[in-house]
C-alpha cells in the first residue's frame, strides 16, 4: 500500500499559505508561523478564510497533494485538483456506467449494502461490548431488521428502491445512536441529524467528520484516476462530488460515526469545546477543532486488516484502498465492486 503521510490542517483563520522552495509556509501578516516540507504531506486542509498562493496550488497539484478549503463552519468550499492522472479509458468507463441506470444500480447497491452492513455491525459490537448498558434485545432486533434490508439490497435493480431501503436502514440505525453515547450524556444528546447548520454538539461533530471524510474520499478517487464528480447513486449535480458521496456511504459509520462516539465516550472532547451561536447553530471552538483534528490524524494511523485485501493498512488508507478496488472493477478485473465491510 501507499504510504500514509500527514495532512496539514491550518486552523488559524487569517493565515496565508505560500510556497518557499520545497516547503509550505504558513504566515500571519508579516510573520511566519509555520513551515513544513511538502514531501511529508499528503494533504493540506485550510479552515477559515486562509488563502494560498498560486505557486503553492501548482506545487500541490503537481505532487498529488490534496489542497482543500473549508469554511469556518467546516463546510467544504473547494479543492485544488491537478491534471488528471492515468488513462482516459478508465474515466470513459466510469461515465458510460454512470449514464446507464441498470449498471449504476449494480455498483450503487454494493455501496449501500456496505453502508447498512457497517451500521449493523456497529449495533452488534455494542451488544458485545456494553451488554450492561444498552438494551440488547432491541439492538438485536434492529440488527436482524438491517440484515433483512441487506438481503433485499442485494437483489435490488432499481435506484429509487435502493434509496428507499437505505433510508429505512438509516432511520433504524440512528434510532439507537443516542444509546451509543455512554458518557457526558447531558451535553451530548442525539435527537436526529441536523446538517445546515448543525444544531447540537453531536451534529457539529458528525458534520465535521463527514466533511473531512468526503474530502479524503474525493482525493483518493482522483489519485487512482477516477472522476470524483460522476457518481452512480448520487446523480450529477454541478459542483457536487457525487462519486465521493457514493463511496462515503459505506465509510460514514465505520470511520466517522465511530470516531465521533469515541471522542465523546472517551471524554476527549467536552461541552467547553463548543460555541452556541445566536441562531442556534453549534460550532467547535478553536481549541475543540485542534483536539478534533489531532484525534482524527491519530485515528488515521491506526492499523487494521483490510477485509478484502487481507493486508494490514492504516485506517487512513481505507478510502484509497476502496478507490483502487473501484478502479480495478471498472477496468474489468473483478465482476463486482468489493466494498469495505467491517465487523
Amino acid at each position, binding site marked *: 500500500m501507499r504510504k500514509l503521510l500527514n495532512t496539514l490542517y491550518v486552523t488559524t483563520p487569517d493565515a496565508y499559505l505560500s510556497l518557499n522552495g520545497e516547503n509550505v509556509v504558513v504566515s500571519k501578516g508579516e510573520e511566519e508561523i509555520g513551515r513544513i516540507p511538502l514531501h511529508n504531506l499528503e494533504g493540506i486542509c485550510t479552515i477559515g478564510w486562509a488563502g494560498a498562493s498560486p505557486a503553492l496550488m501548482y506545487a500541490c497539484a503537481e505532487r498529488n497533494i490534496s489542497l482543500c478549503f473549508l469554511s469556518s463552519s467546516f463546510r467544504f468550499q473547494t479543492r485544488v485538483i491537478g491534471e488528471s492522472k492515468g488513462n482516459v479509458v478508465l474515466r470513459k468507463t466510469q461515465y458510460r456506467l454512470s449514464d446507464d441506470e441498470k449498471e449504476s444500480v449494480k455498483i450503487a447497491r454494493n455501496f449501500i449494502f456496505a453502508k447498512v452492513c457497517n451500521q449493523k455491525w456497529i449495533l452488534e459490537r455494542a451488544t458485545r461490548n456494553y451488554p450492561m448498558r444498552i438494551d440488547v434485545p432491541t439492538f438485536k432486533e434492529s440488527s436482524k431488521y438491517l440484515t433483512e434490508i441487506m438481503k433485499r439490497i442485494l437483489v435490488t435493480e432499481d435506484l429509487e428502491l435502493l434509496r428507499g431501503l437505505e433510508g429505512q436502514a438509516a432511520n433504524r440505525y440512528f434510532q439507537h445512536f443516542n444509546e451509543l453515547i455512554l458518557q457526558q450524556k447531558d451535553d451530548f444528546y442525539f435527537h436526529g441529524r441536523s446538517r445546515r447548520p448543525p444544531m447540537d454538539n453531536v451534529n457539529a461533530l458528525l458534520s465535521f467528520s463527514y466533511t473531512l471524510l468526503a474530502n479524503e474520499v474525493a482525493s483518493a478517487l482522483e489519485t487512482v484516476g477516477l472522476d470524483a464528480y460522476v457518481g452512480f447513486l448520487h446523480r450529477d449535480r454541478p459542483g457536487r462530488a457525487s462519486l465521493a458521496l457514493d463511496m462515503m456511504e459505506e465509510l460514514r459509520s465505520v470511520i466517522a460515526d465511530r470516531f465521533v462516539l469515541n471522542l465523546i465516550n472517551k471524554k476527549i472532547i467536552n461541552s467547553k469545546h463548543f460555541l452556541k451561536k445566536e441562531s442556534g447553530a453549534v460550532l467547535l471552538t478553536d481549541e475543540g477543532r485542534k483536539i478534533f483534528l489531532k484525534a482524527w490524524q491519530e485515528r488515521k494511523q491506526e492499523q487494521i486488516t483490510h477485509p*478484502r485485501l487481507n493486508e494490514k493498512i492504516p485506517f487512513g488508507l481505507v478510502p484509497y484502498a476502496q478507490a483502487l478496488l473501484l478502479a480495478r472493477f471498472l477496468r474489468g478485473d473483478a465482476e463486482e465492486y468489493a466494498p469495505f465491510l467491517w465487523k
Partner: protein
Amino acid sequence: MFTTENNESDYLMLSGIQHFQFCQRQWALIHIEQQWEENLKTIEGQYIHKKANQPFLREKRGNKLIVRALPICSHELKISGICDVVEFVRHPSGITLQGEVGTFIPIPIEYKRGRPKKGKEDVVQLVAQAMCLEEMLACDIKEAYIYYHEIKHRVSIEITEELREEVRKMIKLMHQYYENRYTPKVKTGKFCESCSLNNICLPESLNREPVRKYMERFLE
C-alpha cells in the same frame, strides 16, 4: 536518422518488453494505464534529449568505436528506446559507417544492475534492441551482450531467428493490448512479491473469492 514520418506516438517503449516478459499485466499497468509511465517517460525523454544534441558521441578504443545512450527505433516493430552501449568492432565482414574508414560489426550491450535472471526478460529486451539496430543500420547482428553489474561480467547472447520470432510475436501482442487498452488478468505468484506495482495491481483481489460471496459472509 530518426525519422518522424510514421506516427511515432503509437510506438511502444522498448524498455516495456522486459516488463511484458516478466508479467503482461505489469506491462499493461505501466504502459497502458500509465500508473507509472510518467516517471519512465520523463526519464527516458530527458535522456534522449541530452544525447540528441550529440547523437554519435564516439569513443575510440583500439579497434572499437563505442557509442553510448543511442536512441533507437524500429518502424517495422513500432517500438523505440535507447541502447545503453553499442560497440562497433572493426571487422572485414562488417558495414561501413558515415564518417569512418573501414567496416564495423555493431554489438549492442545492455547494462543491468543485478545479476542474471531466471526469466528471459533481459534477453528479449536485448534482442529487440538488436532488431532495431539491424533495421537502422541495414545489417545483421548475431551476437549481443548483457553486462551484469553484480557479477561484473558480460554474458553473451546469440541473436537467433527463434528469439527474433518470439520478440516479433510479443510486440504484436503488446500492440494489440495497447490498441484495445486491455489490462490482462494473469496467474499471480511468488514473483508478485518483487513487483513494484503490487499495490495498484492488487494481485490478491484477482485470486480471491467472488465479491458476492464475500458480501454474503456478512449476512449472518
